[in-house]
Every structure is written in structure tokens, then in C-alpha cells.
């Protein structure tokens, strides 16, 4: 087990993100393609979360009556 833990060398990744880095440079604005991708993905995910229909939308008659008593 101990020898397994100390296997040398990095585990080869399927896509290497090392090497020449890509940047978007517009005037004074400079951002890595990686960071831009993450930020755009966040916006896309947020918008999808807003617009995608949520499952199990019960009609009012099917909803459970309130069981929890107010304090």
C-alpha cells in the first residue's frame, strides 16, 4: 500500500492543460480562455437554472395540506 502511495510521476491527464496558455486581450482587458470559459459557463448554468422547467409540478388540488403547525 505504501509503495502504491509513492508511485512517481504525475498521472497522465487525458487533456493536458499545461503548455502554452491562451489569453483573450482586448485593450487593457486580459483574461485567460480558461477563466472566461468558467465565467461564461456560470452564466449559462444560472440562466438554464432559471428557465428550465422544474419537474413534479403538482396542481394545487394535489398538494399536501399543511401538516406543520405554526408556533
Amino acid at each position: 500500500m505504501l509503495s502504491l502511495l509513492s508511485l512517481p510521476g504525475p498521472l497522465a491527464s487525458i487533456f493536458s492543460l499545461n503548455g502554452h496558455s491562451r489569453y483573450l486581450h482586448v485593450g487593457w482587458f486580459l483574461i485567460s480562455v480558461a477563466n472566461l470559459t468558467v465565467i461564461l459557463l456560470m452564466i449559462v448554468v444560472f440562466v438554464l437554472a432559471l428557465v428550465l422547467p422544474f419537474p413534479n409540478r403538482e396542481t394545487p388540488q394535489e398538494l399536501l395540506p399543511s401538516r406543520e403547525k405554526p408556533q
Partner: protein
Amino acid sequence: MTVAGFPRNPDPSAEWTGAKRPYDLIKEATVALVAVTLLTVLLAALFSSPDDKPVTVSSWAAAAPKDFLTTALSELDGTSGIASYGPPYTKVPGAGQNIIGHLSIERLLGVQIPINPAEAFVLGPLSIPAQTSLPLRAALRDYRRAGAARQQVWTTAFGKALARAQFQNGRLVRPFGPGSYGPVPILIENLFAMARSGALDGALISTSRFYQTNFTKALLFLSDGGYLKERAAQQHLLGSQWGMMNETGNYPGQAWLWLYTFWYQVPPFATSTNADAQIWAIMAILSVALVCVPFIPGVRSLPRHLRIYRLIWRDYYRMAERAPPAVAPVVPQQE
């Protein structure tokens, strides 16, 4: 029975007594945990993580010998970045950034992590090989005994010689040309040998204690040179490159630091000598503002005006429109 299941204008401070839907909290948390774990494993397997090798003093001296020696000389003669930094490292009158006007917390606190650059980075480490080298021991003694003015003459002259210097087989090529260098060449040549061998890396970390975990001296020395900065620039890590957000290679970095690094790119902070202090103050204020959003007029009413909530709760509003009308309670007839 009154039906108040879908109030159009629910009181947010009151306990919800309207309609409810089934909810499995533990199941939701379990699904989230499994999903996030799988996503993490997938990302780790696809992309791994960056691990650019750190710079050592040894690799610095080998890769950029002139930069290393120029830096070492500047530490010796008190012209280095750290020597003129001021608090918390060195006592330099007037040094330290101002937040506003002449208010400087840095200056108020004074020197808390004292560093004597000449001793810490040059003379102190050289005392180790000096134990077995008479010429080096004599050079150290002569340098320490000389007055500040004489030391300055030697280091200034040797600085000019260093600018023209050549290297061969990992050594400085003598002679250095005419000039009054005193013992400085011996000091610098020995420091260079120490650096190339790796001994200087060890010397900069060691103290009188056995166990070490503090790399202050080593990192300050590396930061004063140009080699670490050059390696960082290649990876877009400089402040002027929005570096705070960036990671080496094509890895995503710290995108959440976008606002902090933004200020360094725009005037007046881009050229201000007090940029760090000023931007820290701005970010402290904005951080407090973020925490206090519920109390800031204007900001706290933005959600109502932006109306994105109408998308979030559209199902509820639709159900509220379709809900059966409220039925008045049946009051039993009094006999």
C-alpha cells in the same frame, strides 16, 4: 376551511402556512454529494492539476547568473527592493504605502519581521564556507570592518564590472577590469558558488532551531530578483497581466478575484505607488457592503426592479392564479 395556500403577497417574516410539496432533504443531499463527487473525479481525470516546479536559488543562479549576482550585490549595498521596502521588514524613514493622505497602517505598525538584507542574504550565509576558507574569512572581516562609505565605493565599482562580466563553466571570468572592488569580488564569487551548489537554498532557510517551516528570507531574496518574475510573466501571473486571477498553463484560476485585480489595471491605481493600500481599503469597504446588502437602500431593492424573480417563481404565480378561491369559514347558526 379557508384556503390560503397560495397567497399573492406572502409575509416573509411570518411562518409559511400555505401549500407544501413533498421534500426529501437527505435524498437531495445524497444525490448532490454523489453528483459532485463524480463530476470532480471526471474533471480530475480529464485535466489533472498544474505543478510547475518552484524556482530554487540554485536554479536561479544557473539559469540567470547575472540577474542573481546583480540581486545579491544590491542586497549587500542596500539598494535592493527589500532594503528599501520599509516596514514590516526594514526601517526606512517615510517608506510604507498610504491608504489616504499620509495615513499608513504599515508605518504605524513598524518593523515586525526584521530583515537585514546584507546579513540575511550575503554575509550571514557566507559565514558557513568561511569556516574552511581563509581568503573568504579575511574578505568577510575586511568588509565588515570597513565603514559604510568605503563599502559603497567597492559595491558601486563592482556593480559596473558585473554589468560587463562574462561567465564560463559556472564561474565569473576574471579579471573584472580596473576598479576599487575591495573584498567584494571574493564575497560575490563565493556566494555564487554557494548558490550553484544548492548550499545557499539551505542557508536561507536554516536558523538556530532544527525544524524549519519559514521561507521568509528565501522568498524575499527570490522576489528581489528578475528570474522568478520572468517565469511568472511567461505564465501571465504579473499584476499588470490580471495575474491574481490566473493559473499556470490553461487551468482556470481564481476567477472570483476578478474585482480585486481589476483595480490594478485602471488609473489612478495602475500607476500609484500606494495602489496596494488603496485597493485593499476599497475591497474592504466593498466586502463589508456585500455582507450588508440587506441594509443598503437602493441595492436591496434591485431584485424587485430587475424582476428576475418572476422567472424563479413563475410556477408559483401560475398556481396562485389557478388556485381555488378562498372559502369563508362556515359559522354555525346560533339557536
